[in-house]
Each structure stands twice: as structure tokens, then as C-alpha cells.
């Protein structure tokens, strides 16, 4: 099978900007673009195989989370043609963006319940994408992050679950009880 390896190359800054402009001008996501409560999670190259009609085209896969509609937008932008070639809406939970990770950390760190349980020297160690096991947890159906607190490189001491839709802490659990 002949394939052009350059199609797998990381997108340039210009290609990323082009992909996002093309997507946000598409009428099917007009509402999302107008409201502007969305996060761009990933813009990466996508390569399709022959004999697909787009094989050989420079493609970008754009994954966006639309907070206003609480849904994921998964788009394939054909950069050669300047069109959105494929668009899918779902309730899937794509990876947190770096900005969402930072937001979750900032919410957890000022929460009174969290602060009351932190030991001296505890700092945020990591922020992870979290989803609950059962419907009894808010994080089961809502976009959420888990922020781990602890001392430097030591073991975590506390887990705080942050609901990113309401921007609130929904659970605070000692790490050993997680």
C-alpha cells in the first residue's frame, strides 16, 4: 500500500488554526461557536487509508467539548478542501484539555472543604480525568476531574472530585479510603 508518511506529521500552528476556523464556521456547529462555551481538546493529524476518497488528503481531527450542550464534537477537517468532511456529536467524554485540568485544580484548591482536610505542605500533585462507577455519583454522567493532593513527591493524602460543568467540588476523600 502506498502511503505518504508526511500526512502523519504533526499539524503546524497554521494548520491547527485553519482546522478550527473551518470547524467553527460550519453551520452545523453555529450554536456552539456563537455561545462560545466550548473547549478544544485535541487537534491532531488523521490519515485515512486507500481506497477511501480522502486518502492522500491532509486531514485534521478536531475534538471539542461543548459545555453549553454537554456533548462532544468530533470533526474531521479536510485541510486541502477547506471543509468539514465528517462531524459527529456524542455523549462520549474526551480527554480533559490542559485548561480544564488547570481549572479543576484551581477550583479544588480554594474549596473550603478541601482546605480543611489538607495537611501542612500538601499541594496539588496531579489532575486526572475521572468518571464515576455508578449513577449515585455525579461524576457518572458529568464531566469531572480528580485532583490529587499530597506532599511533593510523597504519597497522595487527599482526592477531590471536581464537577467541571458546575465548577464545584463534589467529593473529598482521604486517599487511603479512595
Amino acid at each position: 500500500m502506498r502511503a505518504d508518511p508526511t500526512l502523519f506529521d504533526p499539524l503546524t500552528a497554521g494548520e491547527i488554526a485553519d482546522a478550527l476556523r473551518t470547524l467553527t464556521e460550519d453551520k452545523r456547529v453555529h450554536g456552539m461557536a456563537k455561545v462560545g462555551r466550548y473547549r478544544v481538546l485535541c487537534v491532531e493529524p488523521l490519515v485515512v487509508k486507500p481506497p477511501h476518497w480522502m486518502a492522500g488528503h491532509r486531514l485534521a481531527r478536531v475534538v471539542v467539548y461543548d459545555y453549553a450542550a454537554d456533548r462532544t464534537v468530533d470533526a474531521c477537517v479536510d485541510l486541502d478542501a477547506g471543509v468539514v468532511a465528517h462531524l459527529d456529536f456524542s455523549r462520549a467524554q474526551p480527554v480533559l484539555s490542559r485548561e480544564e485540568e488547570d481549572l479543576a485544580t484551581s477550583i479544588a484548591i480554594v474549596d473550603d472543604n478541601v482546605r480543611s482536610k489538607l495537611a501542612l505542605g500538601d499541594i496539588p500533585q496531579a489532575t486526572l480525568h475521572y468518571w464515576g462507577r455508578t449513577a449515585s455519583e455525579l461524576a457518572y454522567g458529568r464531566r469531572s476531574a480528580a485532583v490529587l493532593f499530597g506532599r511533593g513527591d510523597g504519597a497522595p493524602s487527599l482526592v477531590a472530585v471536581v464537577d467541571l460543568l458546575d465548577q464545584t467540588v463534589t467529593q473529598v476523600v482521604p486517599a487511603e479510603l479512595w
Partner: protein
Amino acid sequence: MSNVISEANWKFHWRLTESAGIMIYLADFKGRRVLWEASLPYVTVDHQRESLEPTSDPGERHGTWWLPLGGRTIQGPVRVQSFRGGVELSATFASGPYHYTQLWRFHDDGRLCPWLTIYGPGVHPQHTYHPHFRFDFDLDGARDDAFERFEEGRWQRVEREGWFPYTGEADKDGTVWRQVDFGSGAAINIRPHSWDDAEMFAIRYHDGEWAPYSPRSGAGNQSFPAAYIGDEELDGEDVSLWYVAHVHFDQSFPYTAGPWIKVEGLR
């Protein structure tokens, strides 16, 4: 550093992804196409609670979390090193109490080792890692493939998409699954690590049906890759494979998960 490596009878390309670790693509062995693309889309972690009282055992109370292996968690550069009889790529990823080294090892006899070494203490000792490796083998082309599993003492053709856990049965070389190319008769043999508690998902290839940047397809739904499984035929089609390991943390960590893969029959 060039992202094309020609060494040890292999020629392959690589790049660092945003969430699926180091991706390998367009890999040829002795000038013949073996792999279109392969990556490590997710490493999820869940937690258990232990109790000596069965009646009070809380089981798994919390859900799963994950951190993407990619640009935001990589520690230092991707390393390319030759070793006797091959060449390997490696990269270290870390976030909080989770530490991983992803490895891609290419041997001159056709072996390929996509591995993940897991370090770090986690939140507490009672936790399990679930690395998900995805392979899109295109042995001598994308189509005319078949997927087989070793079962009841012989190789058996799998006609439709499905989930195929390692049951402990393997051929004399330890191979449990293989992808065969009808045209050339060549095969990709896959042997699980015996402590991986491994399972294989065999799915008909669809463009873009991979790494949706999350293992979660929706509340109450199957997670990926199980959510990709339908009832499509595999025989003679283009097949993609997901190898999923389940590794419970213990004090003997670090542990290296992932299969041994060998290309055979290319002439």
C-alpha cells in the same frame, strides 16, 4: 531527531501524540508493510478496597481515572537507542503518583515489543492498571486479513468481531492470537505476557475509529474498545486489534506489560 528509523531490517516512523503515547506508523520489515499504525490510546486506573470481613467488603466504590500519555506528561525527550539485534524507542511519562515508561522494541528477526513499564505507588496499594494497546497491522496490504485464536488445541478462524480473552491456552511457541494475510500466508503472531491477564478485541477497521481521546463512550455505555464491537465480518477484511492488560499493583513493581509480537512467513 528524524522520525524515520531504518535499522535492524525495520523501517518505521514515529511521533508523539497528545494522548496515546508514542505512535508508530508505516512500519515495514524487510521491505514489506507490516503495520499501518499502532499506539497506546489509554492507561486507565481503578481502585479496590480490601477487607478481611466479606460482609463488610465495600468492593470498588469509585470509578476509573486516567491521564493521557503525551505532550503534557512526557518527562524529557523520546529516546532512540540501538541494542544488540535491534533498535528501541522509549519515553517516560509521569503525573503525580503515576509513572510509566513506554517502549517500542524492534528486533532484526521480526520481533516487535510494544511495552509499558509501570512504576509509582498510586493513591494506595489496591489499584489496577489497564493499558490499552491498539494495532492496525496491514501485512502486505490492508485487506485479505484473517484473525485466528488458538483454542481447543488448534488454530481457529474468527469470523466476526469480538472479545477474546487469554484463557491460558497457547500453541507450542506461546502464541495465542494471530493475524494472517491470505495473499502471502505471512502472519503476525501475538503472545501475551502470562501475568498480563490479557484480552484481545478484534474489530473491523474503520477510518478514525480509534483513540477518541477517551476510553469512555458515554455514561452507562461500554467503554472503548468494547463499544466498537458490532457484528461485522472479519474474514478477508481489514482488521484492527486492541490488546488490553490488567495489572494489579504489588510491591514487586515496576512491572512491564504488553505482548510479544513476531512477524513470520514474509518471503
